[in-house]
């Protein structure tokens, strides 16, 4: 056991392991690129959808059930399915990651919108704001803490799941996990897993800190 951890330690800290096209630095950059791009696409889909449902109150059924749908979706299954349909490219990976992230974003955005005090919305309309002004100047800023929580949640899920890129022969930190498994190299598997976990934790803490800073004037 001790030997395993000491091997893991030297694997993680060796200079040669960090450099080169299959080094940790490069794989990390790939992993972040997949994750951020997928979350960005998911935001572009999920945020307007959640805002629209929250603002109009129509389609609440969709927003609520999307959450359980997202949890039940088998990501690897989806990758294989899209891979079979579209052939070998990054498309199956992005489709799966986006499908994973959208529900968290829609559900949290919707939850944030419904939590806005109806008196405040009423006052906004009563002061003469038009529908889009109420949305942009009142509902969106007030829902923002919960919207950001949704984005954070989505990003963490995506970072943890982006290892599947390696499953269909692409890069990212999943490379170490899948290669390690194939080569029966436990240290490499463990190294990849630890790196993915570390990236997720660092991003989560960073975003939580950012949220606290941005919303320091808000009450609970």
């Amino acid at each position, binding site marked *: 056991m001790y030997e395993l951890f000491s091997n893991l330690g030297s694997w993680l800290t060796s200079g040669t392991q960090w450099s080169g096209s299959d080094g940790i630095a490069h794989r990390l950059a790939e992993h972040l690129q997949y994750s951020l791009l997928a979350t960005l696409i998911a935001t572009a889909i999920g945020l307007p959808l959640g805002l629209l449902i929250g603002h109009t109150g129509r389609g609440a059924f969709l927003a609520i059930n999307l959450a359980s749908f997202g949890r039940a979706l088998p990501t690897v299954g989806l990758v294989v399915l899209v891979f079979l349909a579209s052939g070998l490219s990054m498309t199956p990976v992005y489709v799966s990651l986006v499908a994973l992230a959208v529900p968290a974003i829609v559900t949290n955005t919707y939850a944030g919108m419904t939590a806005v*005090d109806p*008196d*405040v919305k*009423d*006052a*906004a*309309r*009563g*002061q*003469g*704001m*038009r529908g889009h*002004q109420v949305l942009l*100047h*009142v509902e969106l*800023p*007030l829902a923002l803490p919960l919207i950001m929580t949704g984005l954070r949640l989505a990003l963490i899920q995506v970072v943890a799941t982006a290892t599947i890129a390696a499953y269909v022969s692409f890069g990212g930190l999943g490379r170490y996990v899948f290669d390690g498994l194939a080569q029966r190299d436990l240290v490499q598997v463990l190294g990849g897993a630890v790196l993915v976990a570390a990236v997720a934790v660092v991003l989560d803490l960073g975003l939580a800190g950012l949220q606290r800073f941005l919303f320091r*004037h*808000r*009450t609970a």
Partner: protein
Amino acid sequence: MIQFDAVHKRFPNGTTAVHDLTLDMPEGGVTVLVGSSGCGKTTTLRMINRMVEPTSGTIRVGGRDVTRQDAADLRRSIGYVIQQSGLFPHRTVLDNIATVPLLLGHGRRRARARAAELLDTVGLTAEAGRRYPHQLSGGQQQRVGVARALAADPPVLLMDEPFGAVDPVVRTQLQDELLRLQKELSKTIVFVTHDIDEAVRLGDQIAIFRTGGHLVQCATPSELLARPADDFVADFLGAERGLKLLSLKTLADVPQGPAPEGGAWTLVLDEARKPLHWASKDAEIPVRPLKDDDSLLAALNECVASPGGLIARVDAAGVLTGVSSRDDIHTHAGQAHTDARARTGAAA
């Protein structure tokens, strides 16, 4: 001037909120809509700025049918204050007040300058302007709500139970300030409340509603108190409505004479001739001197409490001008009732 002409409001669930309402709210005056919950007073108010659309009938503000105007433009020209203040929690107090000027495209600098001016108008410090709404007390939040409604200087102000959620002491302060502001600004105000005392204090005219959205009586406070239209109105005004009428009359016309010398009780003054207390051989009783603009009700209260049945009258500086007797006050109280009945009798 706001005119309701045969206005009817029925909600999709079938309840009638306002039933065939025809009512004029005069320009520059305070019209109070009063009644128990579910009587349609708030719906009536909200139809004026189209927060609720009437089912039939017409509502005119300044002669123009409200349904023929763009709803958002209409609302920007009408001040609106609601019970829980409805302030935007993510904006500073100053930016809350600047809302409507910004919507009207006045530019940030000008809107903020106007907002700063209004902080002062409603009795808040410049420091309060930099805070967020949740950092203020309930009473201060309501002041901000009023300032926000006044920011674009609208001729009409709608107030939906604006002082309903603050404690009685603060409520009285806010009412006093509204009366003071109204003296300067002469807005056409529509004010909704379920508190009849508030209605009597603030209203130039009071419209009483009954469940089902029926307007029962619309009259000046003294007409209403002297001649309630039916038992419902009389019950709503309460058993003390005779005394409430006295709260509308001032002491100014009640005669006063010199303070008595050598009786059982003497009025003790300080060097500036300001009343200190009533004194007999072995007791002192506090005195609450009254000014000319204090009400007959306050005078009645004071003469019941004072040992000789006399009230001490002072000028604006608090210097004694004379005393009035219980008989003088009673005579004027009776006269106030006779006058109010005679006036409304003649009108009817």
